[in-house]
């Protein structure tokens, strides 16, 4: 990308930021209430909702990290897409219909309502902050690599620029701008893949000729670089983690109705399918065109900057910029809600006004940004490995309390707290142990297993939730379970 095109890149990024700020400012009044800021006034339809769900999931981990993954490991990682969708079906069947009953704003709201426990709310909020610091660092790292290469900035400046853009956009817009930028993100991603993929196939060669070149480089590139066991563990972490993911649940709260939510999940599949194919072909093509990149995560930036024609390349780069700023925004919004709504508004100052809580949320966004910046500057690993590790942590402490809590009447607050603490501890311990993992279990599997054992074990030993709570979540009243312990 040369002089005029580089200027065009900066101009387009600036125009995008102005647009985001415009959406944010246009909705500023609506976003000045807590429900407006965090849940877009529960106004999203199926298509915008679907774009929002997709936009949350398809982060820089996909547009930069997954392209890099396909670049260095070939096709096998693509199987995680359909496997992850199983997690979405779990969300559609077992999470979305019930969790909307509480009309909450955040995932910790669910913990407080379902388990009647301030502690459960506080622990969930705290753990969300920790995991999202890791997740956000992957977005900043990806953005830093892109701006570093395209803009000629050193990596530190590039990461700071990305953090600034993401923070400013979140502070200004809240969920309203996140939802509409989600739609913009979907359009940009689809347009860039629609233009770039046929172009690459025309010039690099057919799938078969790419396969010949890749198989000769390393036979695992066209077959199974990752074994099924690894793919299942990764997909379980990402897919089941999504079913209970705070930002996806925040998005579910923001959709109009339960039926619209299920349809939105379907539309998000449509977007994700197109993106999955595009990401795969980007990675494979780049491995054939430039087999010796110094860092696989550079595949997308290099593709956009110096392989594709400037205007298609510009679109690919802009889509990547929108991706990491938008997902970063969704994460920051969740952080804002965990701090302002759950920790500040419910635990520290329950009498705080709506306006004070929104202010606390915006302050939290700004303050929290610094932690992932520090992590991103250390470049812990490839972008997608960071995303996968964060997903493993997430599924370990959230999946069981959310899905079991929503579908098992006997689940209790003590069970949920034990489940979260035990799941997180097990995942960390297994990760620390390293490969080959203890008992052959992946950290995510160990986390979910320990979390489930503790949830069931502690719940049947403690007092069940009140009848009012059970009626709220499960509708018709039923006779208490036989193994109910009332002590």
């Amino acid at each position, binding site marked *: 990308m040369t002089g005029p095109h580089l200027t065009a890149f900066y101009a387009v990024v600036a125009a995008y930021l102005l647009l985001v700020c415009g959406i944010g400012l246009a909705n500023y009044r609506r976003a000045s209430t807590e429900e407006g800021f965090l849940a877009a006034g529960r106004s999203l339809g199926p298509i915008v909702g679907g774009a929002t769900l997709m936009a949350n999931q398809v982060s820089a981990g996909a547009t930069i990290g997954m392209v890099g993954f396909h670049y260095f490991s070939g096709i096998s990682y693509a199987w995680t897409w359909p496997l992850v969708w199983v997690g979405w079906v779990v969300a559609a069947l077992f999470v979305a219909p019930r969790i909307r009953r509480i009309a909450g704003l955040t995932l910790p709201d669910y913990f407080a309502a379902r388990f009647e426990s301030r502690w459960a709310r506080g622990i969930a909020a705290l753990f969300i902050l920790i995991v999202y610091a890791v997740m956000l660092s992957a977005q900043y790292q990806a953005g830093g690599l892109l701006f570093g290469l395209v803009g000629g900035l050193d990596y*530190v400046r590039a990461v700071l620029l990305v953090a*600034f853009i993401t923070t400013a956009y979140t502070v200004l817009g809240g969920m309203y701008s996140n939802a509409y930028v989600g739609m913009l993100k979907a359009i940009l991603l689809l347009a860039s893949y629609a233009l770039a993929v046929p172009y690459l196939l025309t010039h690099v060669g057919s799938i078969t000729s790419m396969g010949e070149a890749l198989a000769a480089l390393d036979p695992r590139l066209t077959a199974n670089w990752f074994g099924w066991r690894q793919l299942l563990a990764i997909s379980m972490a990402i897919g089941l983690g999504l079913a209970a993911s705070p930002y996806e649940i925040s998005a579910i709260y923001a959709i109009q109705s339960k039926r619209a939510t299920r349809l939105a999940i379907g539309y998000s599949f449509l977007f994700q399918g197109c993106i999955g194919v595009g990401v795969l072909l980007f990675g494979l093509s780049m491995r054939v065109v430039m087999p010796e990149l110094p860092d696989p995560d550079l595949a997308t930036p290099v593709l956009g900057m110096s*392989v594709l024609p400037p205007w298609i390349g510009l679109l690919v780069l802009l889509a990547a910029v929108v991706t990491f700023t938008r997902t970063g925004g969704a994460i920051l919004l969740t952080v804002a809600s965990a701090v302002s709504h759950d920790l500040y508004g419910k635990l520290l100052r329950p009498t705080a006004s709506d306006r004070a809580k929104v202010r606390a949320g915006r302050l939290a966004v700004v303050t929290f940004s610094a932690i992932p910046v520090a992590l991103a500057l250390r470049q812990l690993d490839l972008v997608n490995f960071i995303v996968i590790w964060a997903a493993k942590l997430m599924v370990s402490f959230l999946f069981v309390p959310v899905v079991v809590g929503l579908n098992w009447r006997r689940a209790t607050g003590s069970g949920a707290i034990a489940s979260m603490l035990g799941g997180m501890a097990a995942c960390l311990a297994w990760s620390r142990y390293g490969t080959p993992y203890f008992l052959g279990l992946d950290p995510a599997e160990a986390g979910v297993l320990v979390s489930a054992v503790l949830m069931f074990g502690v719940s049947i030993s403690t007092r069940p939730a009140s009848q009012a709570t059970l009626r709220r979540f499960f509708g018709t009243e039923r006779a208490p379970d036989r193994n109910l312990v009332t002590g």
Partner: protein
Amino acid sequence: MRGAGLLGPLCLFAACWGPGREARAQVAAGGVDVEVMIDASGRARVEERWIVAPAPTSVELRALMRPCAEVGDVRIDRDGERVPVVAGREGPWLVLRDGATARRAADTLRLLVRYDVALAARRAAVPLVFLTEPLPQRDGAREGSAGVLVRFRDPSGAVHFPHLTRAAPDGWMGRFVAVPSLLEVSVGGAEATLARECADPDGPPGDDGGLLWRFLLFVGIMVVWVPVYLRWAGRSREEGA
């Protein structure tokens, strides 16, 4: 309130911008300049000058063989001395190793790689030979370590892929983070001697390692899954949904 919202990110940005500037050191120098001269008969002469970290053993280079382009007369000079070249094939890749035995201690290794490519069509891909080690990445430098310059005897020639800028009537140039494996060009002034298009741009079928069926299966799953799910979601009732 609105001002306070904007002030925060500005402060964060301003506070962090200065101190972080020098935190990351520059990587060691290294790179390659590739010069390709293409005449109207479809013959391309390629000269690559590499300056890289010294290699304790023989260096390995590769080139992606494409239909309608034949690589020949490969010569490698290592630190100014001609070294024997051992060539082999791995699928569509031409693999070249220098056969040098004596190693001289030095800060850098200078390789001069020269070869000819005979094109059989006016529009064809010129394979570029590349070292099978990544070039160092320069932090904060937009330009990559690999410079490519293509010159045509006839100015109506053009480079189509990857993207190069026309720097002169007969010259195209670009900088990359790594050497591209191919340059798709059209040769100007060659109407009489070369075919218009490459007759078989994908070449004879080889072993794709199962990529095609895996790709089709992947796309097939996506194509079936979405309508099936949407049909189910569309039929679910609001009350029970």
